């Protein structure tokens, strides 16, 4: 059973540094030959780059407190929002995740689906909000059929 009182909860947060070499590695892995990532001395980061916070996270995200049954969880997608150009190499960020919303919908094939929306905020050294990563996960009424879907990590 999902615990709706988790709405508004935040994790402890952690720091990360946007690095030029990591931008280059990430851009090449996502098939980009864009000189804005590869040749600029201070490149901006690609739109989905902030998932590399996996290398900086200290764990303990808010999901444990929500009580999701991970066997029935699907990844409902992401949205990245930038309040200016994406963070550039050298930027020191602080990342903190909050549970933004939890709501239910009736599934088309019966059973209640529970949607959990988390927002990870990225602030620079002055405390200014520079980027947000909004993630939606869906707990289905029953376990997905084998081969149908798989929760993506990170």
């Amino acid at each position, binding site marked *: 059973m999902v615990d709706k009182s988790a709405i508004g909860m935040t994790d402890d947060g952690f720091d990360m540094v946007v690095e030029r070499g990591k931008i280059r590695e990430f851009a090449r892995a*996502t098939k980009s030959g*864009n000189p804005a990532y590869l040749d600029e001395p201070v490149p901006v980061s690609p739109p989905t780059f902030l998932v*590399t916070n996996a290398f900086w996270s200290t764990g303990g995200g808010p999901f444990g407190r929500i009580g999701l049954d991970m066997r029935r969880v699907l990844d409902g997608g992401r949205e990245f929002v930038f309040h200016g150009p994406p963070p550039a190499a050298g930027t020191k960020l602080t990342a903190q995740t909050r549970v933004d919303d939890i709501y239910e919908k009736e599934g088309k094939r019966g059973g209640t689906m529970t949607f959990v929306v988390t927002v990870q905020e990225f602030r620079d050294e002055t405390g200014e909000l520079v980027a947000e990563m909004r993630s939606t996960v869906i707990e289905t009424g029953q376990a997905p059929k084998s081969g149908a879907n798989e929760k993506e990590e990170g």
Partner: protein
Amino acid sequence: MTATVAATWDDLQEGASAEALVVGPLTRTDFVRYQGASGDFNPIHHDEEYAKSAGFPTVFSVGMLQAGILATYATDWLGAENVRTYGFQFREQVWPGDTLTCRGTVTNRYEEDGERRVDLELACTRQDGGTAIKGWATFVVS
């Protein structure tokens, strides 16, 4: 896949699109390379035995890889510094040997907060036409 001259405001009428980006056939090495770059080491994407024991015929791609490739298409078109929103949903899984095609269309153009902006509808499709990633984005236009 190299950025060319940036699209201008006049180019970006509603319905405008850029030449499709075709990537593939994707290999297991592409999956592993993305996993190393991103820090998502879920074995379902590289460990054949693990994937089979979970009921899959073989390993499959990381959803965030095709989401990242679709982002590459959009930023090649409209500029790496200009992206303000990029969102997506995962649809079909992507398998070794798949070839992906990324396309996008301008759905709205407007001025907001003194900036020219365009909204895009984006899609990353597999070789059989199925949608792997459905995306949307907002870019500023200089």
